[in-house]
């Protein structure tokens, strides 16, 4: 069969597929009957067969490229992503995220240590000798922290309007989640980036905490942070863990090729990173709308804080059950 005969014989099929694709592109699919839509399958497979024939019979680059483009368009339309976003978000929060965390407890433990140990080190150093705080913080930063946590300070007064709360919410989301994402992305550098950010934040937190205690402002500080500490600290550790998973794929891909290992690790770790993002948004809500309110007595805040820790660990422990079921 010559090329022109081939074209004449099968032109109708190609035009029919093109029409269907144009209808889908212009979102006119509702005007098609189910029978017409059902033809899409058969038409696409037919065109794939024609493409293979055209290649094998050397009918020329023109025809092959035309059929290739047509098949690509149909392939793109047929294998599109699944719809139904709302249900998958719920499923992500209840199954995928806790399951992923439970599957990689080792990485979470390392990340937690990389965060907690520097915190304790700097806290001990500053706690034993208050002047050492200048090793970690500039004097301006120290002063601004002291001002922030003065009992009855302006930023925690009753005059704080809800609009300030929204402003602080926006700031916490922008600031904290960006840090978490950078921690995650930095893991690609053999995990070093993640460890560095975790250690840096840990040292900073330990120094600030110890200095606050030295300055006698612990009442205001701890009642402020108790609400969101569980969510935020856990989320930072999880983001670090996700980064470590990426790093492990880079330096120790096991039996897989390096790029393949990174791709698989990316799929797993991004679940943890997005879950951490969700936790940080929750922490930002708590931090902006609850932690700074004066009308709640400190004892209630501490109680809620303790409950949050329990809740976070119970949520992640639920992941172990999910992971076990999926095995």
């Amino acid at each position, binding site marked *: 069969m010559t090329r022109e005969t081939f074209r004449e014989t099968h032109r109708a099929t190609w035009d029919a597929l093109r029409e269907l694709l144009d209808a889908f592109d212009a979102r006119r699919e509702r005007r098609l009957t189910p029978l017409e839509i059902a033809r899409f399958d058969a038409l*696409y497979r037919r065109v794939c067969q024609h493409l293979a024939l055209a290649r094998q019979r050397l009918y020329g680059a023109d025809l092959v490229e035309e059929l*290739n483009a047509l098949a690509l368009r149909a392939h793109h339309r047929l*294998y599109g992503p699944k719809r139904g976003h709302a249900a998958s978000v719920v499923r992500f929060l209840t199954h995928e995220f806790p399951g992923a965390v439970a599957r990689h407890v080792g990485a979470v433990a390392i990340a937690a240590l990389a965060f907690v140990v520097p915190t304790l080190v700097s806290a001990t150093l500053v706690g034993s000798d208050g002047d050492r705080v200048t090793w970690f913080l500039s004097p301006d930063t120290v002063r601004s922290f002291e001002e922030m946590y003065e009992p009855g300070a302006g930023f925690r007064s009753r005059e704080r309007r809800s609009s300030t709360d929204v402003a602080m919410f926006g700031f916490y989301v922008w600031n904290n989640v960006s840090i978490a994402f950078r921690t995650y992305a930095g893991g690609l550098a053999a995990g070093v980036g993640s460890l560095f950010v975790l250690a840096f934040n840990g040292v900073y937190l330990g120094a600030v905490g110890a200095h606050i205690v030295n300055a006698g402002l612990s009442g205001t500080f701890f009642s402020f942070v108790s609400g969101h500490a569980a969510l935020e600290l856990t989320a930072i550790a999880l983001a670090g863990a996700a980064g470590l998973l990426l790093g492990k794929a880079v330096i120790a891909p096991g039996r897989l090729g390096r790029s393949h290992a990174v791709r698989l690790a*990316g799929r797993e770790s991004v679940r943890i990173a997005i879950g951490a993002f969700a936790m940080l948004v929750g922490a930002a809500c708590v931090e902006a709308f609850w932690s700074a309110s004066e009308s709640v007595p400190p004892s209630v805040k501490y109680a809620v804080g303790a409950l949050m820790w329990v809740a976070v660990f119970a949520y992640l422990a639920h992941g172990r059950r999910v992971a076990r079921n999926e095995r």
Partner: protein
Amino acid sequence: MIDSLRQVETPEGVELVLRVAGPTARAQAWLLDGVIKIAVLTALSIALGALGELGRGAFLLALFVVFWFYSVLFEVLWDGATPGKRSMGLRVVHDDGTPVGWPAAVIRSLVGFVDLFPGCATAGLVTMTLHPDFKRLGDIAAGTVVVYVDRRRRARHAEPEACAAPPVPLLPDEQGALVAFAERLPTLSSARARELAAILEPVLGRRESSVRGLAAYAAWITGRR
């Protein structure tokens, strides 16, 4: 690989060919996206500045979304292309040619932060130049590739005036070579066309291997009789 073509085997058992986009086109798309992002954020900051503290919070949220999720939202919801990529005719797809989904798009965007190091996207550009499929670090981690969307039809070639049967029987790949030569004729200078046609002189003889003669044989082979 000489051509920037990537072959993907589909479940239908046929190989589809994707044209992979190189660093230049992608850099242009990225710059255009940057301009759009800055314009949107500037407009928002002016609009929300009037709302005081509430506006500030809303702006920071918008900044967060635009910085980390601009690409994600466009790539998943708008057929695989941000406005910048669309202007250059590019599209993001998975390695196997399927349209990009949420996990891959998010990974691309988050790891894209690393691509910006050490300054002005150097890591990303270097990785793209060295990788056979022009992938940056975000693409490697997510298993995606940026390809051209072939929308335009090739201009039709000039119809040959004559068509004549080849004087000797030809094998299929020899016929394919003649057809390919005839298809490329509009893009060849006449001197080059004569030079290529002269290759067949020992086989077909001098008169029969003129450019016009070969085009006539190709027309006969493709079935214009």
